[in-house]
């Protein structure tokens, strides 16, 4: 009989090996899925995992896809480390997109150089304000932020729908649910000519670096970590519990809002009712696969972007349904959580009792 017993000390090797183990198991699981669907698993592997990195154009697409994920995930990680469970980044992403679009629609025809910076600020504020709602509810009424932040996602989605079907609908858009396309003044500059990779990637790297300094080096980040590890110790040391909740939610909200801005002012170039493709939820997986660490998050967001693009390619070349990306994301999180058990536990063979 096998028995799961606690390790005397958490295994550090397992802590870093477990994401790699999860990736390998996801690939193996994916090949099995391909086989059972009657596809050649090696073709599947090539299309899913190698196509997205085959040339500079493909790599630019990959980085473009990874940009919103790393932005949102690093913001969320700051909260998650302090046990602030913001599940509503998707809604904060949408509200950031809405705020940035508002600025764009209002001022883009002025052609001013200030439009883009104003959109960046508006995006962060829009996401931050949306995250401030669960923060108020948590600090004033002790309402669970997991529920409130998640419910606000649906409100945000309906608000976006209302805007693009109603007041903001492009009059020349053949009744499609979308705003007019942005002019150059409201679009982020392209980094590599001929690709779609834009300046948002640089912003994301800067946010990652800032997140690293905040979490690992700053006193405020230290307080957040203490609050996450032990609420009683934080109280003893005199760290404000309210402050921790506010910082945790606002960091996630502002970062998600920035990501939303980057999407409307980047590859999409307008606000539509399908602006997000679930980045806010995928980023939760990215944050955990990256061990809530900015460096880990960088690599995890590349991996998650790979799954997104690989899924698209599989649709295109293998006639697989679009939900294939979700299947891979689910497998990745499942295998990661499964491997994480072995950080604290080990499997031992024990003699069966007679």
């Amino acid at each position, binding site marked *: 009989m096998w028995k799961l017993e606690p390790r005397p000390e958490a295994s550090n090797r397992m802590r870093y090996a477990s994401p790699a183990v999860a990736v390998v198991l996801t690939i193996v699981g994916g090949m099995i899925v391909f086989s059972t669907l009657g596809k050649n698993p090696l073709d599947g592997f090539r299309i899913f995992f190698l196509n997205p990195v085959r040339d500079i154009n493909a790599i630019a697409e990959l980085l473009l896809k990874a940009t919103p994920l790393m932005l949102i995930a690093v913001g969320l990680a700051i909260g998650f480390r302090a046990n602030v469970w913001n599940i509503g980044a998707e809604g904060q992403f949408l509200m950031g997109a809405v705020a940035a679009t508002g600025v764009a629609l209002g001022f883009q025809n002025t052609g001013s150089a200030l439009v883009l910076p104003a959109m960046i600020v508006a995006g962060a504020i829009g996401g931050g304000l949306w995250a401030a709602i669960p923060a108020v509810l948590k600090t004033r009424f002790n309402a669970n932020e997991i529920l409130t932040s998640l419910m606000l996602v649906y409100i945000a989605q309906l608000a976006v729908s209302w805007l693009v079907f109603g007041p903001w609908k492009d009059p020349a858009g053949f009744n499609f649910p979308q705003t007019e396309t942005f002019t150059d003044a409201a679009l982020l500059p392209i980094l590599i000519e001929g690709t779609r990779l834009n300046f948002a990637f640089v912003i994301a790297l800067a946010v990652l670096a800032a997140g690293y300094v905040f979490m690992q080096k700053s*006193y405020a980040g230290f307080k957040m970590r203490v609050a996450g*590890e*032990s609420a009683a*110790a934080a109280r003893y040391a*005199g760290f404000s519990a309210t402050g921790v909740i506010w910082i945790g939610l606002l960091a996630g909200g502002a970062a998600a809002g920035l990501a939303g801005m980057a999407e409307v002012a980047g590859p999409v170039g307008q606000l539509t009712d399908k602006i997000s493709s679930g980045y806010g939820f995928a980023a939760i997986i990215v944050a955990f696969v990256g061990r809530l660490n900015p460096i880990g998050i960088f690599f995890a967001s590349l991996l998650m972007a790979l799954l997104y693009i690989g899924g698209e390619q599989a649709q295109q070349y293998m006639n697989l349904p679009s939900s294939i990306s979700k299947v891979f994301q689910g497998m990745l999180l499942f295998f990661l959580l499964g491997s994480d058990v072995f950080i604290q536990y080990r499997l031992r063979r024990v003699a069966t009792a007679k």
Partner: protein
Amino acid sequence: MMDAQGGAQASGASPRLALTGITKIYPTVVANENVDLTVMPGEIHAVLGENGAGKSTLMKMIYGVVRPDRGEMRWEGNVVTVANPAHARELGIGMVFQHFSLFETLSVVENVALALPGRPDLSELAERIRQVSDKYGLPVDPRRNVHSLSVGERQRVEIIRCLLQTPKLLIMDEPTSVLTPQAVRKLFETLRKLAAEGCSILYISHKLDEIQELCHTATVLRGGKVTGHCVPSQETPKSMARLMIGKDLPVCKHDAAKAGGDVRLELAGLSHAADDPFGTDLKDLRLEVRSGEIVGIAGVSGNGQQELLYALSGEAPLAEKFPVRISGFDAGRMAPGRRRRLGLCFVPEERLGRGAVPSMSLAENAILTAARTRGFLRRTLLDFKAARAFAAECIERYNVKCGGPNAQARSLSGGNLQKFIVGREIMQDPKVLIVAQPTWGVDVGAAAFIRQAIIDLRNQGCAVLVISEELDELFEICDRMAVIAKGRLSPAKPAAETNVEEVGVWMSGMWPGAQGAAEVAHVEA
């Protein structure tokens, strides 16, 4: 003492309990190694040892809570394997744990009924409880709810629960740590009566004077191994201490306090309703602690110490400013951080999870309270190098056994972590130091060291408040002493002008001029 000893030997044909070669190994520690233990019928047998010597593990094996890895247990001559506590009770083994297992919202008789097999008739059971409590001098009203009982009364309920099953062996784990000196005497009478009727008692303690007074024989454990046997009545506390810790008990140097220091900490009529429905409300507490003196607050735990400490540290700030003054500032509504900036340092009762973050390194745990006082801040960023250096100095000066400043707090033993936390607070040169249970769970040598460090800090002019349940400790280090009982605080008296007897009486709430003294007297009688 002599007659009790005679009784034990007279009835002794075959031993009631005999352990041979008992060994229990946990992943990181050997809790017991080749332990032999023999208990005769009617014998009160002490198991003596410091915290972590393996006493509790040994008792849990006898009671069937954990299983030994090796070794043999004989019960009345037959080899047995105790499968679980229910099996132990069937055999006739009863155990009173250090931490009670009673449901606060149920009555005494309901609590007792839960421990019995089947569904006993409650009124009949109440009658039996009354009989047993009369017979052994354990007065308890079966219909009262447990949350309204004092700690001493709760212990009586636990003992009665065991006695209803007429045990042949009763295990008592550190039973006196929660009792007043007077209640201890009552308990001893009960235990002697039980022993005279042939019940064997295993008495776990590290208090040498009690063992000398009560027990017929003693087995001494150190580091999981038996290091000696003795007849306590023929030993001195000093000789037993040597068996227990392997060396003589260290003593502290304590000169008289300098008089006339300025008032650093003042309670000016502190009243506070407890947040917890079963907590203790604080009622009109008044106290002054001056620079250069150590004031002790004695009392049985659960009489308002927790609530008082939360109000002093600021972890539960008050509604008004005036009741707590620190260094001359009204601090009642201040958060812990602001009180620390007034020069307050605080060693809490729980070290892991409150005084230190288990998963963080000692250097990071130094940042926890010393970031501002010891300058680990470079604007908003942390200077980890300075924190590591501070932690290393603390480890060195307070002789903390650990893997260095990067060792996780949870990897340290309780006593070593306590030394680190005490060191961390003292090394911040506080104006006011508040210490709860300074040496709880710390071995005797380290305890003496911590006490000396507190006295040295006082000599440098710090105002120190110590809250402890250990009377001996308070008498050893305090200049003045007060007692907390039922959320009220007695006047403080110079330690030299009082004694254990008087403090013991005060611990049940009966100091001169105390409100409700009569009511308390009724309950404790």
